[in-house]
């Protein structure tokens, strides 16, 4: 199934529940892309750097980034990705439990496309995934 047109979403979140919910909601929302998960900033960077020089595996088309993660957190990794020419084009959406204005401002300034607070119902998860899929995965496909 993996081909040139296959879109991919990468979620970086240490909370496996949220990864599972997001992946399920993505499917329920009708998403067709590959949905991968990594557990922290280090893993995310490894995942991306590995694919930067690979022909067989492409870079993700959307990164869903949690802010509070062990080892390397979302704020650091966001700045790092935006500093690398090979990666800075990938749209990044923050998906966090935080509602803090400071976080919203900081990530927007660093180049995050959007800031979403994690919902507390599955319905909302599905709605979020639907909107994200429509905004960032279909446009480029057309």
């Amino acid at each position, binding site marked *: 199934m993996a081909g040139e047109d296959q879109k991919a979403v990468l979620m970086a979140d240490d*909370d496996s*529940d949220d990864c599972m*919910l997001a992946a*399920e909601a993505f499917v329920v929302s009708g998403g067709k892309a590959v949905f991968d998960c990594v557990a922290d900033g280090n893993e995310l960077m490894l995942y991306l750097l590995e694919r930067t020089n690979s022909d067989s595996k492409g870079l993700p088309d959307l990164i869903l980034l949690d802010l*509070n993660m062990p080892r390397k957190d979302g704020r650091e990794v966001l700045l790092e990705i935006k500093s690398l020419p090979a990666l800075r084009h990938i749209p990044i959406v923050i998906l966090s*439990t*935080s509602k*803090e204005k*400071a976080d919203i401002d900081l990530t927007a300034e660093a180049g995050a496309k959007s800031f979403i607070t*994690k*919902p*507390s*119902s*599955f*319905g909302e*998860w599905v709605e979020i995934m639907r909107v994200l899929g429509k905004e960032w995965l279909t446009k480029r496909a057309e």
Partner: protein
Amino acid sequence: MPDDQLNGRLKVLILEDISTDAELVENELRSAGIEFEARRVDSEESFLKAFEDFSPGIILSDYSLPSFDGESALMLAAGIAPNVPFIFVTGALGEDRAVDLLKSGATDLVLKDRLSRLALCVRRALKEAEEKKLRQRAEDELLRAHAGLERKVEERTKDLRLTMQALRLSEEELRKSHDELELRVQERTAELSASIARLEILNQELQEFAFVASHDLQEPLRKIQTFCDLAQMRCSSALDSVGRGYLDRVIDAASRMRHLLDDLLQFSRVAGRLERFKTVDLGKIIGEAADIFEEKIKEAGVSIETGDLPGIEADESQMLQLFQNLIGNALKYRSSQSLRIRISAKQDGRGYCEIFFEDNGIGFEQQYAERIFKPFQRLHSHTEYEGVGMGLAICRKIAERHGGIIRAESEPGKGSVFIIRLPVMQNKVKAARNSPPEMLER
């Protein structure tokens, strides 16, 4: 001195060895009209004895006697009866001797061949003696009086000294007990300060705990809610109606817990936040608070009247929160008649402003007027009225953070009045409050 005082009383002691000479003397006195009683002695022994059993009023003494002499007699008399006049009646005597005798204390000196002077001399001597006696008496009295006075002064001085001593003692005791008291006050103050410091730390830890707990509990709760939701969507068909009922209850309880945690978080945020004071237009704030309930207010036909409201120095967002909670509270506990809210204010002239928030809701028993401000305290079950009982606790916290108070007056069925007393300016009360560290937002 009147003669009659001399008369009959005068006792004349005559020291004379020659009886005829003594008779001459007596005759001379008698012829001068002096009444007297005389005794003649001619020896030391009889002379001395006369002082015991005769008590002479005057002594007339010869100068030289066979067994005695006038000079010795004068010395003796001066020792025994110094106030009795002593007149020498003698034969011719050298002038120098006469002067010596007078110097030695003799009252006078009369020559035997000039006896005519005697009566005059006696009278004068007696008069002088009498005067001397009177003077002496007066002096004695004076001395006595003086001594009495001195004694009294001494007694008084002693009394005074005792009183002063007693005073000094009681003063010392007073100072001692004052010092002791001061020491105890200092000790107690130190103890109290230590307790206050401990309590402050404890309070701060509690606030931090409340914040962290409510913050961290949100995450697992979000999962419970989401997975319940997922289960309801995906697995409902696998459950029977009883199972679905259970799931509904879990979802309901999780939703209540969500509200509870939200409110608790808000409560601890109010408690832990640093003051950001500026002048706040209360009228404008109340307008904004009412806007939050716009739909409900329209729907229920609520009227909100505001009087003249002052600008006060406050944290704007907390003031908004306060009035939002009060309006929300009034909406929740409105009666069957349409809700009317009246908000007015007056300043007390002592730097405080009192805001009266009146409604015509269901009200409550006055005995609960304090309880309603305690966290998680409710007067109704949440099946009657939803909510977790934090709204008014947050209001109180906000009032306290501003150095003010909030209280309520009510009667069932008669509506309620919430009275918020806040300082107009914050600088006066700021120093009195401790400023807890800003909570770590995560």
